Structures are given as C-alpha cells and as structure tokens.
C-alpha cells in the first residue's frame, strides 16, 4: 500500500525559498513557536525551565517575555503530571507544547505519552483529538553520560499513535515545528542538542543556516534527499545527517558518489523515499545515533526487504552498538556514529 497516492490526495504545502536570513536551529524553533502563539491563543508552553531560563537548550528563549506567565509556565519536576496536563488541555481543544527536558527522562512519564497522548484518539473512535507537541532534546557527544545522551527515537516510533519528527537543520526545524503545532495529532518533536547551534556546545557548521521569516510548513512524513549520489545511500537523520554530508563531500573527491537521505520524520516514515534511494544505489548504510538493535536501522532493512529483497547489494549500520553511552570521551566517541565510522562503512559498502 503505497503512500504516494495517499499523499497526492492532499495538496502538499510548498516549502518556500530559504532566503538569506540566517538563524541557528534554536532560534528557528523559538520563531515557529512564537509565531503560532501569536496566531492562536490556545497554544501555550510548559516544561521545566522553559520560562526565565528559556529552555535548557534554548528552545523557548524569549517566549515568557513575549507571552507572559499564563502562556509560558515553568513546571515542577513532575513529568507525568505536566505532560498529562498537556494531554487534558489538548483534549479540551488547546494546543500545548510540552517540553521534556531530555528524552532520557521518558522513563518517568512514558505512560502519559504512549498510553494516553498516543491512544486517546484511537480509543475514542476518533471522537477526541489530542493536538499537542511533545518537544525533547536528544543525543550525546559532550560527555553527559548514560542517562543524558540518548537518542531513543526508535522507542517512540515503535509505539503507535504519535507522530515523530527529527529535524536536522534550522529550516526544517522551523517548518516541522509549525507543522507539529498545527497538526491535530500528537507530535513528538526531537531535536538533537548538537544541531541547535548553541554557543556553549560544539556545533556543526550547518546548525546556523538560512530560514524564511514567514510561516511555512515542512510536511510531516516526508524525507529529503540532502545530497544526490549514485554509488551508495546513507539513510540517516538528525545530527548524523551532517556527519554523513561531510563524509559524502570528502569521498566525492575520490569519485565515490554518496546519496544522503535525511528522514526528517520517523512516523510516518517515508518508505517510498527509502525504497527509491535503495533502488538507485543498491547499497545502503544506515547511520543512526540511537541504539542499533530493534530500532530504526532494522526498520529500514525491513522496508527494503518487504518491497524487494533483491534490491540490495549491501546493507550495513553505523549506530550505537547496544551499549549505554559511556562518559569518557574516548569511549563515547567509540560508540557514536562518527564521520570516521561512517566513512569506513561507506568505503566497505562500495568495496573501496
């Protein structure tokens, strides 16, 4: 059952030209939220340190000043209570944006997320909608240890009823946040700390980029070919997109043509785009900062195998090898999907 036809039925929103104005991802997110809060009185923001602090990773900077303490509220450290509060408000027609400070904390509040936020629409036979955004920070690379460095998008994507989006750059971050707020479904919005462009964290050069000033939507469920190539496909998302682009750039000099697919959404997953790139190159490397087994990387393999098990000449994975994220830098960078590991996998895939 292809989604192409399905999606063709809806007119896809047009993504505007980016223009010249440059923002980091954090500002792009703030801008999307701010603009939607101006348009729609029912949008509000809650979470730990989202007010005066502006979000530990600056996702909400300036919103308290603009919209006041009735619409931007710091919460106690009570994730079940305040995520649930978001759910109840959404049920009554509001559009909450709730920040879970680190995705690693999902374990204290997952019941609200997966058994309530994600299921009420279904359980009610479609009579009750839960239009909310659960925004959360992911990823490692700065020695924050095993409880503050995880990606975990595979965990959310496995459980039905919530959309899951994972932007890699400022442009998509704004457009996906706008789409998430306007969606009538619960959307889990996962930003990697390393793509936010924070002053106090090593950033990739593309964490500051051109972003249109006006409102626009990046459609949920659409991947994007971040770089065209013909020899091998890297299927990836989030910060790993940039490592992959860097590797592609480097290998282009050696005549290895690497296609990079930025998934952007996990749910819905753009299976057509995955199959298309696999069909094009026949060699797939999945690069994923989440744990390797029982997650995204496997789903890519299954998607291709279901479509046509003869499509692939090579399949490999560069993920976190089923180990908690270690603290020591030497160990952490041994398990993260670094450019070094990605390059090695790509070379192996093309037999170079």
């Amino acid at each position: 059952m292809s989604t192409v036809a399905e999606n063709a039925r809806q007119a896809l929103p047009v993504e505007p030209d980016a223009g010249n104005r440059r923002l980091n991802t954090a500002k792009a997110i703030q801008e999307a939220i701010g603009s939607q809060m101006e348009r729609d009185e029912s949008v509000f923001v809650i979470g730990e340190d989202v007010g005066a602090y502006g979000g530990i990773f600056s996702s909400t900077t300036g919103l308290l000043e603009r919209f006041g303490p009735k619409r931007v509220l710091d919460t106690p450290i009570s994730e079940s209570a305040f995520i649930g509060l978001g759910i109840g408000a959404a049920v009554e027609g509001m559009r909450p944006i709730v920040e879970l400070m680190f995705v690693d904390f999902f374990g204290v509040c997952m019941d609200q997320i997966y058994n309530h936020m994600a299921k009420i629409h279904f359980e009610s036979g479609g009579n009750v909608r839960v239009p909310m955004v659960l925004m959360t920070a992911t990823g490692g690379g700065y020695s924050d240890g095993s409880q503050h460095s995880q990606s975990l998008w595979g965990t959310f994507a496995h459980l039905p009823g919530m959309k899951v989006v994972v932007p890699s750059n400022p442009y998509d971050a704004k457009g996906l946040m706008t789409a998430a707020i306007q969606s009538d479904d619960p959307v889990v919005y996962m930003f990697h700390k390393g793509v936010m462009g924070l002053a106090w964290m090593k950033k990739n050069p593309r964490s500051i980029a051109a972003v249109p000033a006006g409102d626009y939507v990046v459609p949920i469920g659409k991947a994007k070919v971040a770089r065209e190539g013909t020899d091998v496909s890297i299927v990836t998302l989030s910060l790993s997109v940039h490592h992959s682009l860097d590797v592609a750039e480097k290998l282009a000099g050696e005549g290895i043509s690497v296609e990079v697919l930025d998934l952007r959404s996990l749910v819905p997953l753009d299976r057509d785009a995955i199959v298309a790139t696999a069909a094009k190159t026949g060699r797939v490397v999945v690069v994923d900062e989440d744990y390797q087994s029982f997650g995204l990387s496997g789903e890519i393999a299954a998607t291709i195998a279901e479509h046509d098990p003869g499509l692939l000449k090579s399949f490999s994975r560069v993920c976190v090898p089923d180990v908690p994220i270690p603290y020591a830098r030497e160990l952490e960078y041994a398990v993260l999907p670094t450019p070094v590991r990605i390059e090695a996998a790509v070379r192996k895939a093309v037999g170079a």
Partner: protein
Amino acid sequence: MTLGTTERAAELNARDRRALLRQMILIRTFEEAILREYHADKKPGFDIGAGKIPGEMHLSAGQEPVAAGVCAHLGPGDAVTATHRPHHLAIAHGMKLRPLAAEIFGRETGLGRGRGGHMHLFDPETHFSCSGIIAEGLPPALGQAFAFRHAGADNIAVAVTGEGAANAGAFHESLNLAALWKLPVVVVVEDNDWGISVARQSSTAVPSNAVRGAAYGIPGVRVEGNDVEAVHAAAGEAVARARAGGGPSLIEVHTLRLWGHFEGDAQGYRPDLADVPGRDPIPVYEKKLLAAGVLTESDLAALRTEASELVEDAVAFAIASPAPSPDEALKYVFADQTEGARS
C-alpha cells in the same frame, strides 16, 4: 444531575434525596445488567475472552454513593475522570446509557466505536474520560481544569481514583501541581479497602488519605460510612471551592467493593466476605428515606422500574448494534487518518 442550591447534607430536601437514590438505583441496575450479560455466555468454565462482553470487567456495585454524591454537583461542562472501574461515575455524570452500553459490548455505536472498551470511555459531551492505568487519569484532569480556567469558565475537573492508586507517583505529582497552580480540581479517592487482593493496610502507610492533603496545603477530608449524603456534603464544599478559584481539594470516601475486583475474582483472599452483602449502601439508603417519609414503597418501585427500562433499552440497543468492521481496524490511529507508522 444537578441538585438544587443546597450544599450541606442537613439541608438536603426530599427531592434531592430522591434524586440521589434514583442515581444509585440506576447505576446498580446497570451494573447488574452488565453482570448478567457478561456471564451469560461464558459458561461452562469461565473464559474471560468469550461471550458478548469479553475482557476484564470491573463493576462498581457498592460504590454508588461516591458517584451519586459527587456528580450531583456537576454539570455536563465539568469534567470527570475515572479509572478501570468507571461505570458508576459515567452514569452519574450523565453519560447516555446507549453509547455507554454499546462501548462495553464493543459495538460500532459505542462511545469509542468499540475501540476503547469498558476501561476507555471518552465522552466529549460530558467531558468524561477514564484510564486503565492506575492513577494516570489524574494528570489529564489537571489539563482539562487548566483549559476551563483559560477559557474563563467556572467549570471544574473531578478526578476519581482508588485508595490503591493513592500510592502511585502520578497521584502525588498531580496533587502538587494542582495545588501549586490552584487548578479547579477535586480529587476523590474511593477507598473500598482493596486494591485487587491487597488490603489497604498492606498498601498504604496511613489510615486515611485525608492527611495527605496537608502535603499539598489543600483541604483533605475523609467520609466514613459509605453515606451518599455525607459524600454529597463534602463534595459540595470542594466543588464550590474549586469553582470559586480556591484550588483543589482531596476527598477520601470509605466505600465498599460489593463484588470481586473483576468478574471471575473468587475473592479467596478476603476475610470480610461474609459481611459484605450486609453493607450494601443501597438498601440502607432506601430504608432511611422510607423511614424519613421522603419516599414511599411505590415511589421506590417506580424508580426501579424506570431504571430497569432505561438500562434494558441501552443493553438491547448495544446488542442490536453492529460490530465494528475488521476492514476498519486501522482507522482512527491518527486524526488525519494516515495509517500508523507503516504509512
């Protein structure tokens, strides 16, 4: 059902008292009908998944005083959130019996088109909801209260939970947040002495959850005796406080689980089993109203007949309703009807 302006038990007039009894009888009649239908086709040898009504079934017989006493203060604009044992509250809050029964029977005409089932009743008309996960119904109730206040309405949210649930983390988080933000919420704990087979004293370090109000700086009261009028009085104060912007309250009612935890529960663990039928609150209240001259035997018969007609109509409606079509099993995952992660 909204009673008159009287808030205190002492002032309840005859009409109000009859309304409370009527509500309790309606609930019991409903639960008895579900009991009958549930077991009707699970014999010989009880099979939980068999029959017209499959699955776990948690009935509320004995706990009618809570539902009747609390919901008497509410209108359909107020929210009620219940648990795995939700029927009494759904009925007392005014949910239509037909879609309620149809959902319990898993029919397309049910509240959730048969997707939810008896632990997942969502009624936008009465802002009713419930959850099968212990204490996890409370947090969403806070959000409903938040939305009501945001809209400038004086509606409130009532969250009901068992005494076992009062030891779950979400209970604590919700009470603190409700108190902190002074949300228009009333939390009602139904202490029926048991959490499945675990007696209250094996789950809860204190004899009364009322004392836990102090942990949040909110009023906490315990209503003894499973007495609908006492519940009504306590709830009246709490509801009025919430509506007036005075913030949340905690009410614990000592009530009674007249039947098993779920149907099929032989209750071998329950030492008080022999006493239980004698503590049924409905005959007690009937006698009281008869004695007080508020009610005649024929009034009572009329209430029973009316309840029976309403309930049997709902059950017949459910049974006559179509089952959901397997072709539509993937519908309603998302509002925009994309089909889950597979799309």
